[in-house]
């Protein structure tokens, strides 16, 4: 889902630091101006321009959309850029070197954390898997990375922060990392190395590409901008579609409508959410605004989190790709262990909040 380019672009040194600094300041000022004027512009559009009747469903829906859509997009641009710059300090090769030298339990923690900041594209999951396990990164540690990388991603965090507030975003990040660490550790304990396809260990692994010369700051900025173009350029239609559906739910679905089948009272809601979520393939961008609207109509937080994690973290396409290197037994264990982790998180949050 989060696909970011790796920092092997040479050069970029033709930009003068001072020009870069000025451009940066201008960008921040423009961004802040836009962001701070959003509520007024949204209210003004709904009341003065469109003159929608106050208190009507269409009023609620349109105001929601006009406020949330630009807000989420602005936050996405800022955060994806920032994360892009941070990621320019990491490469898969470097992450592998760090992980190959660490002990198992420490390795699981490190791998989950590095999964967040290492550039990763789900279509690279197989080459990365092979690169890790053939150079001494333990299987369980590799899984911690593979669980955390797609699940704890900046697009999901921005949307959660924007629509639910920082607490929910922090909870998602914390529990996502915990699931990655623990499920990787469990998979390591189960000693499933023989369920990796045999050819993987037979490959004479190559040294890989040079890490590339370390980037200078203009290079890192360009890396961040590439990430914005790449990621925001791809997810914005989903964001808009998701917020539009969310807006419609917001305006027309009665309050507490969801409580009966996604509320706390329904014990089966969490497992059902996970089972429905796994084969669904949507990026965070499309699913979260809908989920927010459902929550507002009485769905329970834990159920909604579980659904989201299952959709984003355990995607069917990725497991199909991983089938090339993992035997069915290991795939099933992987889905099972991570799925149980998500279930626990779901029940836990239904119990706490």
């Amino acid at each position, binding site marked *: 889902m989060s696909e970011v380019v*790796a920092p092997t672009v040479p050069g970029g040194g033709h930009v003068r630091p001072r020009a870069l600094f000025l451009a940066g300041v201008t960008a921040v000022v423009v961004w802040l101006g836009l962001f701070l004027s959003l509520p007024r512009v949204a209210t003004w559009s709904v009341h003065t321009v469109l003159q929608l009747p106050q208190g009507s469903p269409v009023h609620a829906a349109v105001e929601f959309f006009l406020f949330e859509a630009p807000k989420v997009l602005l936050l996405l641009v800022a955060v994806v850029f920032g994360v892009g710059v941070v990621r320019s300090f990491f490469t898969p090769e470097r992450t592998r070197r760090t992980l190959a030298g660490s002990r198992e339990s420490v390795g699981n923690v490190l791998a989950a954390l590095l999964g967040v900041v290492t550039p990763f*594209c789900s*279509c690279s999951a197989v080459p990365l898997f092979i690169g890790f396990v053939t150079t001494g990164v333990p299987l369980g540690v590799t899984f911690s990375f593979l669980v955390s990388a797609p699940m704890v991603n900046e697009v999901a965090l921005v949307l959660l922060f924007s629509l639910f507030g920082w607490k929910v975003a922090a909870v998602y990040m914390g529990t996502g990392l915990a699931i990655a660490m623990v499920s990787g550790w469990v998979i390591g304990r189960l000693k499933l190395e023989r369920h990796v396809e045999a050819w993987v260990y037979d490959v004479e692994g*190559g040294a890989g590409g040079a890490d590339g010369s370390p980037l200078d700051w203009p290079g890192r900025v360009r890396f961040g901008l590439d990430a914005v173009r790449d990621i925001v350029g791809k997810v914005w239609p989903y964001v808009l579609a998701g917020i539009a559906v969310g807006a419609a739910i917001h305006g027309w679905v009665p309050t507490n409508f969801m409580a009966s089948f996604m509320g706390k009272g329904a014990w089966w809601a969490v497992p059902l959410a996970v089972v429905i979520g796994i084969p669904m393939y949507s990026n965070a961008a499309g699913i979260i605004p809908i989920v927010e609207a459902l929550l507002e109509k009485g769905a329970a937080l834990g159920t909604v989190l579980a659904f989201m994690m299952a959709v984003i973290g355990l995607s069917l396409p990725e497991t199909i790709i991983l089938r090339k290197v993992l035997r069915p037994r290991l795939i099933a264990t992987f889905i099972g262990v991570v799925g149980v982790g998500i279930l626990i998180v779901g029940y836990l949050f239904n119990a706490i909040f």
Partner: protein
Amino acid sequence: METTITKIEVLGPGCPRCQETYRVVRHVVETAGLACQLVKVESYQRMAQLGVMATPAIAIDGAVVMTGHIPKAEEVRELLGIG
């Protein structure tokens, strides 16, 4: 145009990003009239052999020169030494 390059490999499992990379490289090779072999590699074994962990990647004569992003034409020309 004559260069010492004999073989360019574009590596990737066949996702849109890899196809785009192949298009960029092919365009550069064709416009420069390079007489070298250009192949799109989808084999994970080959990627592992070369040590590629992030796709799309480009290897020139068996040496990985770029990984993990879609290059611009200018970058490919630089990599091929015809910048």
